[in-house]
């Protein structure tokens, strides 16, 4: 586990980072997010927790640029150069119809390229998709139909898609939902591998508090605004966490 650093200040000390300042999102006169400040360094895994409707997906969509917002979302490359960040996104998935004649290759090639996938796929494109899938150790999934994938396999395929082209920030919306324990462990190992290989920031939302401490460098408790930021232990033992979820967790994250 990497040493955890939680900076409150403005400066990234010339390391690459994502800064969110005073972010607010309003829809139909209803505030969805208010005055959110967040600071994420490259190579960090940050978990956002909060009850349903707390604004987790709204925060992600604002960072993705899909929603109008007030405030500032800023990305600095190493050396202090500011650019628009390239964001990779793993959305929550609908249930696929098992009969859908869509293979992983179809979905992948349609997402990353312009070659129409109803025509025979050129060897080079298939090779490229295969290379992308190998990043998540999923090369053997290429000809499977998407409706036949398990929850964990589907998440890995979507993860591979989000990594092409290689983003600065990777966002995963509840990646553990519909994934069994074995799949979850694989997925977390993979994220750990990805952040150290590609040095990118990973932002994910989850309802699984028990495993937070094992992989998250930083945990953010969100309910319209940020109630608490810190290590998993700090957040889970905080009075804010207890009042939001009405439950007490032990230091290992188990419900007591």
């Amino acid at each position: 586990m990497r040493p955890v650093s939680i900076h409150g200040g403005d400066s990234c000390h010339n390391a690459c980072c994502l800064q969110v300042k005073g972010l607010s999102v309003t829809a139909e006169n209803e505030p969805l997010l208010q005055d959110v400040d967040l600071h994420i360094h490259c190579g960090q895994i940050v978990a956002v927790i909060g009850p349903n409707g707390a604004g987790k997906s709204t925060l992600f969509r604002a960072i993705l640029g899909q929603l109008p917002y007030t405030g500032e979302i800023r990305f600095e490359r190493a050396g202090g150069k500011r650019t628009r960040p390239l964001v990779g996104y793993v959305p929550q998935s609908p249930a696929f119809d098992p009969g859908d004649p869509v293979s992983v290759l179809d979905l992948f090639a349609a997402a990353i390229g312009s070659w129409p996938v109803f025509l025979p796929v050129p060897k080079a494109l298939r090779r490229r998709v295969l290379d992308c899938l190998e990043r998540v150790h999923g090369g053997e999934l290429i000809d499977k139909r998407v409706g036949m994938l398990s929850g964990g396999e589907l998440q890995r395929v979507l993860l591979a898609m989000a990594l092409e082209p290689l983003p600065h920030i990777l966002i995963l919306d509840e990646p553990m939902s519909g994934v069994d324990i074995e799949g979850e462990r694989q997925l977390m190992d993979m994220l750990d591998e990805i952040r150290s290989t590609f040095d990118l920031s990973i932002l994910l939302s989850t309802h699984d508090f028990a495993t937070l401490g094992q992989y998250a460098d930083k945990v953010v408790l969100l309910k319209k605004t940020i109630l608490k930021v810190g290590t998993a232990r700090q957040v889970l033992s905080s009075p804010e966490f207890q009042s939001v979820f009405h439950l007490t967790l032990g230091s290992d994250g188990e419900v007591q």
Partner: protein
Amino acid sequence: MELWYSLVSLLPLDWARADAMFFMKNALLAILVISPLFGLMSTMVVSNRMSFFSDALGHSAFTGIAIGVLCGLAEPLWCAVVFSVALAVLFTLVRRHTRLASDTVIGVFSSTAVALGIFIATLDGGSFSKFNTYLIGDILSVSPGRIGLLAAILLAVIVLWLCSFNQLMLASVHPALADSRGIRVVWQEALFSCAVAVVVTVSMTWVGLLVINSLLVLPGAAARNVARNMRQYHLLCILFALVSGLCGLQLSYLLESSTGACITLCLAALFVLTSLLGRGRR
């Protein structure tokens, strides 16, 4: 057309001999154009769950024809084309701006359109029987001009497919993923709906309103039973449509029955066959 007629006369069929049965030769050409067109469109109609939508378009086309007849137009078909294209665009817009489920919206539009059509057709005690040809379809009504129009639409759909198929597929399979990749398919979907509207309306006069929708649904449904990816899906859709079209035409000639109905029955047989094959596979 002369070239086509002389080509067909090489076929070993009794209606293929030179200087006779030109309507059958026109029909054969029409089927060669329209089958790939319906097959191609069928892939999207079935994947996008648009079968009720395309059915409703067929019904609204009938209303358009009734309006055209009421206005005393020599060729009410064009009135029907305009009417159903307008409805297709309206559906697409209303679907985006309503809280109702889309099948409810389509049901509302479709039943209103049919009621309006019957109302106009029977106004002043008029007889409905003059509209029967539209319900059953009449192979004699295929004219070379219409075939040309359908060929142009086939070309347009192929271009749409080449340019936007990936986006349309992503948006239908995984809307959130498409959204996150900045894919918007509003105008592509509207364009596709209009193409469906025109094709359904123009070919309705010889396939028949009652069975036209089956040509848009059955090839896709049958191909889904066995296809494992998009290439197989498209290939099988077009193949099924083509084989059924040719078999149906010949059957209808031999049995002197409606061509549209014969083609549909062939497709239905293929659907049953592929269902059985598909069960064994899973």
